[in-house]
């Protein structure tokens, strides 16, 4: 089996079978990452360009290392050093990068749909590394990988996503993925940040955190952007944290074997208390490790689409 598209633009665009293929392939790469020599020659001679129009350390580093483990030649292009500041259009930038010989382009952009626009105009493989408030597909894939690894399945699980759903591309990708696998998805947060329309996708919405967490198997905590306070989404981080911060006391509402996830970077003491983030049920650092394996799998499989 192969992936169906040359690009990975979002979870929306993937079938369940494709996701299973990616997760299975990632298992193999995770084994590679446990070896003493962590590099495979799979994509030697190919070139990946990480085209980041938005600041990112975590995702870019993860992609870069995944690319290096696959023996790709890697070029990092960030907005501050690119010609975008000189007024070059996004398509022109992408065409120029392609002209340099890029086989893969990982795009991070503040505009939703930017990777889709690029993918329409270039032949190279485009991977969405996070676009606006649309999707962050590799994050959802690594989250799914982590859940399967820890609990063994996704189907039938109760999974709570807590925080700023409205502005979170991570939440969106996770909602689409978990829905495809038949999990019960609960969205928890203030009404200003959890749009009611999402119920049409089959999720349950809770504004009271305690009832939302009741019996869940997974708690995904989202990063709260400090710049949202004072814009009317919530009055202060203090108030946010009192109502929707994950404390160890609240976490007791969840299933006794529940795991805690966070896409990072964390605001300790705001959306998640340190004793939970560092506690025995936290898989936050494993998510980071799994991110490498999943991104290797994605690139490896997308290369296969071309053959």
């Amino acid at each position, binding site marked *: 089996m192969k992936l169906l598209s040359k690009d990975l633009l979002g979870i929306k665009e993937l079938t369940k079978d494709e996701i299973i293929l990616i997760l299975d392939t990632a298992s193999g790469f995770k084994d590679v990452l446990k070896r003493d020599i962590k590099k495979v020659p799979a994509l030697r001679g190919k070139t990946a360009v990480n085209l980041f129009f938005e600041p990112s350390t975590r995702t870019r580093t993860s992609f870069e290392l995944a690319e290096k483990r696959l023996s790709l030649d890697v070029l990092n292009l960030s907005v501050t050093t690119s010609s975008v500041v000189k007024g070059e259009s*996004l*398509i022109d930038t992408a065409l120029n990068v392609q002209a340099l010989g890029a086989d893969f382009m990982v795009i991070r952009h503040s505009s939703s*749909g*930017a990777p889709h*626009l690029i993918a329409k105009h270039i032949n190279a493989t485009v991977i969405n590394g996070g*676009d*606006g408030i649309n*999707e962050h597909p590799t994050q959802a894939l690594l989250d799914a990988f982590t859940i399967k690894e820890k609990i063994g399945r996704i189907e039938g699980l109760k999974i709570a996503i807590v925080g700023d759903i409205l502005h979170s*591309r991570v939440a969106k990708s996770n909602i689409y993925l978990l829905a495809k696998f038949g999990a019960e998805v609960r969205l928890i947060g203030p009404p200003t940040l959890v749009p009611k329309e999402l119920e049409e996708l089959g999720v349950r919405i809770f504004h009271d955190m305690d009832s939302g967490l009741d019996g869940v198997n997974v708690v995904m905590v989202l990063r709260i952007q400090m710049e949202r306070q004072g814009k009317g989404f919530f009055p202060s981080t203090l108030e946010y944290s009192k109502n929707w911060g994950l404390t160890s006391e609240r976490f007791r509402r969840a299933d006794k074997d529940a795991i805690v996830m966070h896409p990072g970077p964390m605001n300790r003491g705001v959306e998640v208390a340190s004793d939970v983030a560092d506690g025995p049920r936290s898989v936050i650092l494993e998510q980071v490790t799994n991110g490498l394996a999943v991104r290797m799998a994605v690139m490896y499989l997308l290369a296969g689409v071309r053959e």
Partner: protein
Amino acid sequence: MKILIKNGHITDPSQGIDGIGDILIEEGKIKEIKIQDARYKMQDKKIKNRASGGDIIDASGLYVLPGLIDMHTHLREPGFEYKETIRTGSMAAVKGGFTTVCAMPNTNPVNDNSSVTDFIIRKAIQEGACTVYPIGAITKGQKGEELAEMGIMYSEGCVAFSDDGTPVMSSLIMRRALEYSRAFKVPIISHCEDIGLSEGGVMNEGLLSLTLGLKGIPSEAEEIMISRDISLAKLARGRLHIAHVSTEGSVRIIRDAKERGINVTAETCPHYFSITENNVEGYNTNAKVNPPLRTDKDVNAIKQGLKDGTIDVIATDHAPHHRDEKLREFDRAPSGISGLETALSLSLRLVHEGVLTMPQLVEKMAVKPAGILGINKGTLKIGSDADIVMVDANKKFKVEAERFVSKGRNTPFDGWILKGMPVMTICKGKVYE
């Protein structure tokens, strides 16, 4: 110079005419109009003799209508000639069956003073293919702060005032505008959008905007301002015209205001009764327009509003943009649809669907705009300018944006097969085929 248009189906609601007949044009004016009756043969001979030495156009099988009037056009000149000029925009108008267009003031510089008004009028006389009336800005620089010199612009030739593209957010300034404009009996055309509520929005708000990750504009951003402006129109006893109505709620509010006897008129655009927000899928910037494309229920409500007379006018909101401007990230692309060359055909769908009759369509695209603007157009009365469009209501064709006369090829209707199109337009006696 004489032209005789023979055997066409003449529909002119301004005179209650709807039947087969002939029109004689002389020196750019309507000289005679005859509808066939029992004595037709005799008249035929008489009118034919009078046309001797002129052209005879056989309009059998065609509708012969007063030239259409677009009361909401962006011609972009001065300042944005790379998007459109008075020349190209008026040529697109003529191709679309329009003989009169009204140029919105959001040019650069803004048409907020008589020198810009004068420039547009002169340029239109020199280069324009059809009649162009300027619409002046309500406020200086369209900033919503200080009234522009409406009186001077009115005497230069502005037929209405609007800050289109941006709303007048101050209720006080809007009240003053509605009051002051009464002196000249001109309408204030309001772009209704609460920019606090619509902040950052790029498409209709709903599940689709969420799943595309695009910031939404709720219907209420439009409806709140329509309600406000209706209240202010009542207070000021002014003449309010609501631009580009896009939502079900807006139709309801306007209908209610009209029932209460408030002096308000309203327009919508073909895209608001032809397509929905679904056209945005795939981040299609050609479907990015402000107000945004809405949902099926809004489309149905707009049609109902047209049918029951709540919405008086179909205007284009022709908003041409350069290809490069639309070829970008969705949230960074400008809003607007190049509409002059598809408006009539899209509106004819309403006739084919039975939403409107042909006379009603002509009312909304010619008679009513003329009435609202107080211009002597939109009629085939003897003595008026020979502004005429001939329409083949059944001819099918494919919309090809690349073949637009307008510089703006930004249309979500590219590739559509439409039934009915203008086949000949006559502006003040000048024939365009």
